[in-house]
């Protein structure tokens, strides 16, 4: 993971410093305002066997709004940077069998293997700076790709385990039943253990539709987990993986 981070940073620097050495003709810069709908999840890469089913997955109205500027390097290639405000959330329910979890409240911890239901909520508000290479494949269609950096302004990772039981410490430990109403289920909140800075990569496509208006689709894939690397409570590292469907308006 460290190697990916370093190479990403080097790539960003190369993108930034590349054009700086050449003469920049500011008149050539294309400025786009964008608004989009984010859809996706915060998920492990490969669902562990201890997760037995996905009971529900609520679509959260997550959006992305901002602008980017593209500087053409040649007829087909260009580089772009942008600034976006976006939200990436999740609200889902899974069933587990012997899923390793630790729930913590202040100084008291409860760790063990949980079989039952888990409702998980993630909410993130962030400023995202994408750096992209673009390649025009036809008159109307342009492909983009590159790294991004997100700074989180607000973050929440919380949930509760209900309608199941925990075997304390290991499968032979005390069996503790979790009920299906508030006061009988185990809540957890690991918001404070989330990173404030996320790195990832995006690929996307822009499609010029009508005059200055266009449609875009992007996929952003987090390369850093949403929690700090020393956080081991959740069994797997969770990555933000979101797609954006949007429209853009070419200001200039």
């Amino acid at each position, binding site marked *: 993971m460290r190697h990916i981070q370093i190479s990403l940073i080097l790539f960003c620097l190369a993108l930034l410093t590349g054009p700086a050495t050449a003469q920049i003709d500011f008149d050539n810069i294309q400025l786009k305002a964008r608004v989009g709908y984010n*859809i*996706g*999840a915060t*998920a492990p890469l*490969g*669902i*562990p*066997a*201890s*997760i*037995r*089913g*996905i009971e529900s*997955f609520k679509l959260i109205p997550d959006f992305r709004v901002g602008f980017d500027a593209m500087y053409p390097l040649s007829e087909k290639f260009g580089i772009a940077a942008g600034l976006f405000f976006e939200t990436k959330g999740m609200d889902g329910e899974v069933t587990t*069998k*012997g899923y390793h979890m630790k729930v913590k*409240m*202040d*100084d*008291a*911890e*409860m760790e063990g*293997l949980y079989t039952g239901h888990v409702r998980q909520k993630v909410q993130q508000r962030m400023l995202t700076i994408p750096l992209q290479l673009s390649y025009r494949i036809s008159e109307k269609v342009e492909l983009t790709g590159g790294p991004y950096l997100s700074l989180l302004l607000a973050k929440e990772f919380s949930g509760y385990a209900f309608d199941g*039981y925990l*075997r*304390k410490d*290991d*499968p*032979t*430990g*005390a*069996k*503790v*039943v*979790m*009920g299906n109403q508030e*006061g*009988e289920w*185990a*809540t957890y909140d690991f918001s404070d253990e989330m990173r404030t800075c996320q790195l990832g990569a995006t*690929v*996307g*496509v822009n*499609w010029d539709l009508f005059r200055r208006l266009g*449609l875009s*689709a*992007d*996929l952003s894939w987090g390369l850093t987990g949403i929690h700090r690397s020393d956080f081991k409570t959740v069994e797997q590292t969770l990555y933000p*993986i979101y*797609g954006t*469907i949007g429209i853009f308006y070419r200001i200039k």
Partner: protein
Amino acid sequence: MKYFYYIVTLTMILTSCIKDEPQNTECDILEAWVEGDHLAQHFFQNTDMRIREVSSGTDLLTFTIRNHASLPAMPVYFKLSSGAVVSPANGSEQDFSNGPVTYIVTSEDGQWHRTYQVDFREASLPSSSYDFEDFELSSNGNYYVWYDTGNDGAIDRIWASGNEGFMIANPNADAKDYPTVPDENGFDGYCVRLTTRATGSWGKAFKKPIAAGNLFLGAFDSKYALTNTLKTTQMGIPYTKEPVKVTGYYKYSPGEVFTDKDSREVPDRIDEPSIYSVLYLNHDEQGNEVMLHGDDVLTSPYIVRTAQEEALPATSDWQPFELTFKGTIPIDADLLANRGYSLALVFSSSKTGDTFEGAVGSTLYIDKVKITFQTEQTTENAQ
């Protein structure tokens, strides 16, 4: 738009790649029983042939029988965790005449084991005096447990407390800081000290902010410790004599601040201890086992005798208490002799601690408890 298609596909992959179900890691005995009409003669009640709802913390299963000497080899059947296997084989005849037989349960994935002792014990005459000198640390070493030594010299785990439930909410607490602990400053030797404790952040989250110190005849099952605490207390053990009174010594000091279940202070309310005992029919009309829990131990229709002290004033010196059993429902002597009645005896440092109302710090000391039975009293009266 093909990228949109890829995004959708990717989301589908992420949400649909549920792996094959892992093999079960649990290795519990959930239920144990002996079957066959020809074996029923060795038991007092048919329900004694089955141990239901074995709690996850139990590793000793005891069947109570009439006579050990005439006990044939017994086939014991088990209901195990899904996929688990037991050795010796489930339902195989084993000789219990030399004491408990060890069974090892292995989980479906083969990685986990639990060792259980299964024993067939002759019903011992109920003890009548409890001095709380016999205690030890629980098998996990976290808290204290009390036991009685039966007339065959073997340990009888007749006493239970909520300590196991407290452990779940406070896994790092020292054994001395649990609600129910031994205290060397007894009336003589050790006594038992019951203290109402705060259960910490967990307890608060589950709206169970306090744990009264308690000790009772029966068993505790932590399964519902966070959800339905009243069901964790299985009150009572079979008794074959009719109790007349419970006597003993106590000291009590109420905690300073009385709080309700939402941890709100209730001004001017002073905490009180509680000591009570009931004798109840342990089978219903259909012959099903009856077990009283925290929610019905004083209200169940199966209760035939109740002994309860109205008021136990705070005292820093040992004071005697005497509770007389009251009730008019006739007691069936034959049923009594055949373990058809159970006796519950409960001590608690906060009278309303079962509904999480009480004062943290309320402390009840109990020592030299004696249950006087019908026959003994007749003898005493004759002297």
